[in-house]
């Protein structure tokens, strides 16, 4: 597939305060590059991520949304990411069911020590979303042009 050089996706990355946000900081401290398309929103725990936020991001023009949290079992609040995992699994499955490209949403567990993994994940996710192009489908679900 031809990658559109012009197109820069908008990516919202929700990061839990304790692991993934710190992992993102570590990526910075180690000067690991990843595209500026990624903008991080700090939340206390991955379980704070309301599906509303994801849909809202898509509504306002995000092309991809990624959630990063502590690895299962390492949650600062002991169980938060387990709930987040179920919620996101079901939500992503629903989006897929509606015909939205499933590559636009993703969950990745990144610990505070995994700066490299954070940067790698973001690089990969941005290129995946860039390949998909602009997110139109959620918007288009409603507008029947025929």
């Amino acid at each position, binding site marked *: 597939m031809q990658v559109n050089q012009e197109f820069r996706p*908008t990516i919202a990355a929700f990061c839990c305060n304790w692991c993934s946000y710190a992992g993102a900081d570590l990526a910075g401290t180690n000067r690991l590059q990843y595209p500026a398309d990624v903008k991080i929103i700090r939340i*206390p725990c991955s379980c*704070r991520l*309301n599906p509303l936020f994801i849909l809202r991001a898509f509504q306002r023009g995000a092309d991809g949304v990624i959630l990063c949290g502590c690895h299962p079992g390492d949650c600062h609040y002991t169980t*938060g990411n387990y709930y987040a995992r179920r919620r996101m699994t079901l939500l992503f499955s629903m989006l897929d069911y509606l015909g939205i490209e499933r590559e636009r949403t993703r969950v990745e567990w990144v610990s505070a020590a995994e700066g490299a993994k954070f940067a790698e994940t973001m690089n990969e996710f941005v290129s995946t979303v860039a390949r998909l192009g602009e997110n139109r489908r959620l918007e288009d679900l409603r507008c029947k042009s025929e």
Partner: protein
Amino acid sequence: MQKIGVFVCWCGSNIAATVDVETVSDALAREPGVVFSTNYQYMCSQAGQDMIQEKIRELGLTGVVICSCSPRMHEATFRRACEKAGLNPYLVEIANIREQCSWIHKDKAVGTEKAIILGRAAIAKVQLNAPLTAGESPVTKRALVIGGGIAGIQTALDIAEAGFPVDIVEKKPTIGGKMTQIDKTFPTLDCAACILTPKMVDAAQNEKINIISYAQVEEVAGFVGNFSVKIRKRARFVDETKCTGCGLCTEKCPQKNVPNEFNQGLDNRRAIYIPFAQAVPKVATIDPNYCTMLKTGKCGVCSKVCTAGAIDYRQQDEIIQQEYGAIVAATGFEPISMEKFDEFAYSQSPDVVTSLEFERLMNAAGPTGGTLLRPSDGKHPHTLVFVQCVGSRCDGGEKGKPYCSKICCMYTAKHAMLTREKYPDTEVYVFYIDVRTPGKNFDEFYRRAVEEYGVHYVKGMVGKVAPENGKLKVQASDLLGGRQLHIDADMVVLAAAIEPDRSARPLATMLTASMDTNDFFTEAHPKLRPVESPTAGVFLSGACQGPKDIPETVAQAGAAAAKVIGLLSRDHLTCNPCVAESNELMCNGCSACEKVCPYGAITYIDKEFRGPNRTTLVRRVAQVNPAVCQGCGACTVACPSGAMDLKGFSNAQIMAEVDAICK
């Protein structure tokens, strides 16, 4: 009307090299609500902080956005600075333009653009920030120590020393724990009882310490500073206040065949008993499983001989309800059962003993009066084989434990040394996999056993022990010598692995303290917070956290006490104000939030609401205890109506950030 001040930091060249700070502060100045925007070399410096404070006072700022390094770095700094200038600290937001912008981008145009967007998101959020005040909760100035072994005693003594009342709950009739059963201690070989019993007496005599023996914790409610605990004090059928501990009843009781747990069942005690001479409290206890009077209603000998009139066959369990500010778990350890290790013939021969049993056989207060005799025939043993790591370091399977029990190398060396010292006519073999002696004077001690006392240390695990004609045929391999050994031993001593006491798991559930797969309590941080559990207000002392020897246990007990004292010395605890909050008008009372809350911070009340036509309507609504809530936000997503929201990270705030980023 919002008056927001924006402060863009250069961080020397850390930010300024890839972000055009001038452009950023200019762009952000045009954002709605922003009345002031500037940039400065080092915002976190005194001069930078002074500037922020000055602008807050001068312009009456209602919100501050600082574009700088990660909030994990300086959020607290800037919040403090703003608070000093009279701005609520929670009206400060940080845009992370260093770790998450300047440091990861090379192109200045790209970096600048992203920094502006991150700044916008912070401005959008701060517009919706509400001033938050950290709540306060009072602290009950009383501590509970669960477990009265050396760990619990030491913790209690240290807390009492600082002037706070402490209760020790011990499930056995006496405090003292495992250390009372130990004969000598390594590496100094001083007598365990000689150093422990004075501490037990200290604990008993200390006005601040209340010992609740023969009791168990049944229920724990509340949170740090405000625990409410229900303790069941089991009936011992003896009035503790009347019993003088004379012991006459324990001599006269006709039921003589009760296995004596203090001597690991190597001899018998009576149905009414005092575990050992130095027991604290020194009070008799009737064992209801064996007492003829309690079982059949016929006997009553102890009651007749008791001059103090302390015997009370109708005594009931007593429930004690008490409030505490802090709880220390000191539940200790148990040696694992040897039943599954057929290869060592533990169940087949009484001459195969565990190290704790051996400890009793060497002890002057033990079943043999301190003379080492074979349990089977009471004869003096000549050849002794010690086997280390029995059940420790096992991979998988239900037979053993995956961890190193830590204390076995040293006590085995001690046993071997003491045997050789007392009975130079014996041959002593120690079979080991590794000898681990990291501790002060530990390796010297082990070397002395080998060099001075001539203990035969053999590298290799014992493969088989078979009782034959009154001897124990030990088959083992000397891996370093490259030969197979067949030893006719008189006694075999197994260094059984240790595991957490069985009462620890249910206790952890009550305390909502976490445990590892081996049922040891987990610490809040393995390195930096070793005596605190992740649950605030719950502390760990001794072997319930992991295998430990006595000096380590005492050190940790003291550390736990220091943490408790630190907590109890405060009159109030400030709570993180970024906690969940339920809007009662919208709450359905469906309990979804309660189910996902890891801290039990949510409770329900029935509340009256005004209904239509002057009616009242009673509805079940959620309430969050701000002192318990840690602010994870799990409840906010479980709540379908959005009645539950998280202060500081509210739905509206996060949505505003999303909007700012996705524009």
